[in-house]
């Protein structure tokens, strides 16, 4: 590792539940350092009581997302040098989710909305049936593939102002997964999905502000998926099926 050039002042949100404040720590600055490295340094060497969440450290598991200088990011793949313009680094828990302690949020509401959006598999066959053919070049399959690499990090959920303003809004990730399954040849729940996503809190709440697509670390496009759901739901409505 490079030798430390200087010290960086890092403001970190500390507190339980709603109540808390920013506390400043001096952390050695390295050329190659991720935001998660900074948080880990504080927990290892300065204050072991700091709570935060991570697992894979390579952008796979989706557990390390936080607000970094006011923007939602996966911290394990965010270089400090990339975000520190004026030498300030401010790390806070992910927006739009209840805080448990320090940097750890309660992600239950986020995952509960996946289920509410029927973004769960509705099986179309049993073990006795032949496997459904999944053709990679099929138009439907391409739509399903577009959103399949979601790592459930809730970065999009934290970026979305519609989520902030409407507690019932299912949010970009859940709606995108619903759209993925809607286009999956193996899913038997198309109608169930459309009914779930077109009610109160459903896809029609989206204002196409595109925060989700702007911030998604996997470079997915939930805004496009939601536009797809809006079209599918409206078509079904016009056909009298909704």
């Amino acid at each position, binding site marked *: 590792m490079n030798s430390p050039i200087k010290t960086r002042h890092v403001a970190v949100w500390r507190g339980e539940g709603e109540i808390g404040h920013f506390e400043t720590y001096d952390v050695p600055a390295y050329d190659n350092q991720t935001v998660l490295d900074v948080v880990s340094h504080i927990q290892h060497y300065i204050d072991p009581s700091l709570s935060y969440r991570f697992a894979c450290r390579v952008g796979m598991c989706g557990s390390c997302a936080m*607000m970094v*200088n*006011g*923007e*939602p990011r996966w911290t394990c793949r965010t270089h400090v040098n990339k975000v520190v313009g004026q030498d300030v680094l401010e790390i806070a828990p992910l*927006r739009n989710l209840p805080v448990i302690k320090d940097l750890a949020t309660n992600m239950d509401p986020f995952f509960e909305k996946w289920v509410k959006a029927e973004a769960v598999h509705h099986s179309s066959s049993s073990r006795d049936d032949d496997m459904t053919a999944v053709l990679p070049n099929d138009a439907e399959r391409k739509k399903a593939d577009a959103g399949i690499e979601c790592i459930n990090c809730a970065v999009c959920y*934290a*970026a979305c*102002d519609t989520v902030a303003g409407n507690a019932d809004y299912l949010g970009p990730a859940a709606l995108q997964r619903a759209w993925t399954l809607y286009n999956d040849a193996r899913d038997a729940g198309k109608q169930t999905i459309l009914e779930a996503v077109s009610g109160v809190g459903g896809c029609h709440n989206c*204002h*196409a*502000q*595109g*925060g989700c697509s*702007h*911030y998604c670390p996997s470079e997915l496009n939930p805004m*496009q998926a939601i*536009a*797809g759901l*809006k*079209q599918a739901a409206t078509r079904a409505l016009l056909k009298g099926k909704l």
Partner: protein
Amino acid sequence: MIRPHRRHPLFLAFLLHRTSGILLALFLPVHFWVLSLALTDAAAFDEFIRFTDLAVVKLAEGMLVFLLAVHIFGGLRLMALEWLPWTAMQKQLAAGAIALSCFVSITFLLQVI
């Protein structure tokens, strides 16, 4: 101050759309009331028309044309986004809608000044 997570082009497009929509909603009732004067009180209407000859009023009219144009073109972009096959260039389209609105409102100003 716009908070950091909102500093991206499509959020600004949203902000412009909402602001222009609200300002139009405030302006249009007044606009229709003034037009109604032509039927109900011709003298007051003529007086108002003279008032609109002031340069500063013309400038304000130019602003209104801009608001209307930016709301219409921005609204058409949103409707295309939701109803037509997907186009990836949403930022460019949003910028184009603003450029077109500037063109329309400046052309209007050049006509009336």
